[in-house]
């Protein structure tokens, strides 16, 4: 993949797609439930973070350190989002996971992987835990007496599962990909495409939010 094409795709096409779910969320903002509002703010944060990263790249700064910070916020947002579907007793498990993961990320950042390396130890761990959340959510939804498509959270969850499961390999091998930027662009292009799918699925969830929803927890 040529640099010019990749740059157009990765800088001008993919990042603005975050606006699709954000616009749908803003259109139905009053009807968004708390978990969806959380996802909305996560997307806003993600979009801004991406913008800052692109600007830093223009100024020829390294941005890999940002991913260490991003991984923590990403994990906390997803943990809080999924915790709302489970009983309050299980909130402690989520809390322990969030604290442990944050600690691990900080230790990894300062003592294990340096600032110019990707966080290939922590991000895959975060992604695996988020995949487990997602699968537990699917397991729980099997008992719901509702059409799959009528439950807005199914759409959001499908987007999250699709993204984290598909990009897990990339998170693990990110540092290897640094060795050859030319070839790694293809992998990043696949990542970006999956990201668009995630945004579109979340956008469908926000769009369907016009009808009232109930959250059951156990």
């Amino acid at each position: 993949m040529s640099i010019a094409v990749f740059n157009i795709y990765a800088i001008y096409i993919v990042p603005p797609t975050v606006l699709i779910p954000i616009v749908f969320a803003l259109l139905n903002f009053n009807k968004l439930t708390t978990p969806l509002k959380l996802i909305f703010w996560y997307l806003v944060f993600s979009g801004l973070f991406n913008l800052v990263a692109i600007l830093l790249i223009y100024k020829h700064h390294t941005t890999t350190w940002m991913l260490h910070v991003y991984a923590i916020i990403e994990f906390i947002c997803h943990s809080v989002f999924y915790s709302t579907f489970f009983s309050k007793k299980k909130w402690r498990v989520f809390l322990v996971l969030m604290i442990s993961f944050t600690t691990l990320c900080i230790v990894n950042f300062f003592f294990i992987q340096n600032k110019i390396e990707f966080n290939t130890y922590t991000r895959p761990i975060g992604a695996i835990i988020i995949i487990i959340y997602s699968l537990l959510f699917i397991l729980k939804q099997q008992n719901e007496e509702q059409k799959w498509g009528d439950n807005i959270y199914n759409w959001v969850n499908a987007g999250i599962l699709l993204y984290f499961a598909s990009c897990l390999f990339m998170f693990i091998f990110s540092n290897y990909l640094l060795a050859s930027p030319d070839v790694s662009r293809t992998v990043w292009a696949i990542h970006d495409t999956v990201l668009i799918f995630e945004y579109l699925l979340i956008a469908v969830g926000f769009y369907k939010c016009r009808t009232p929803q109930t959250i059951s927890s156990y």
Partner: protein
Amino acid sequence: MQNTTDNIFVLVALGMIGTFLLVVSFILFSIRNQNKLLKQRQQFQQAQIEHQKDLLKAVIESQEAERKRIGQDLHDDVGTTISGLRLLIEMFKPSGGEDKNYQDFAQSTKTIIDKIVKDVRNISHNLSPTTLRYYGLAAAVNEHCTIINQSGKLEITLNNSAEKVLENLPITTSTAIYRVMEELLNNTIKHSGASKAGIDFNADDKLITIDYADNGKGLPEDIETAKKGMGMQNIESRLLNINATYNLQPYAGKGFQIKIECPIDNI
């Protein structure tokens, strides 16, 4: 070393695409499975509802048959026997001639017997309204309203714009509607303290619409509480049996209103 690095790129790319396809398949399978399960549950629930409706229908039909039997027995047996007793007393001539005490006794006995005959007739008509069977729903409701109007307990205005449709109703439907109207009027007299009530029958190609209203104290704000009463449950089960729906208006302080819609197709 270069070859090994290239290999990793290909493997990562393939891994990502493979996982993507796997997750998409998993989600699609999950969607299919959940929707299938939902459909099965709905079918099961529908079958349960149908079964309950059949049971309800059987209960209502046997109840009506029993009412009819008791009504006819009362009318034919008890009514006839009491009339015979009255005739017997009339024919009896004591040896003492025109005794004053005897005349008083005969008079008061005949008055009591007349009252019993009238009561037995009313009860048997209530149990099995002959007007409904022979002259249709409109005539039966009209007769019932006339009796109540004459009693002075309530002033009922009956407006029937669906005469033809009501004439052709099957006996199960007309009996159900008649019983519902009876129950509503009974509730108005017993609980509402109303002085006036109105019944409107309307019909189009698909629906018979019955609007019932009185000027009593109406329902409480919480309609669900009212629905738990025996009378309302009776109304609900009768209407369910003929696939009719009803809509109660929260009309506290201004009266009671109910709109009943009975589909003609299902009749």
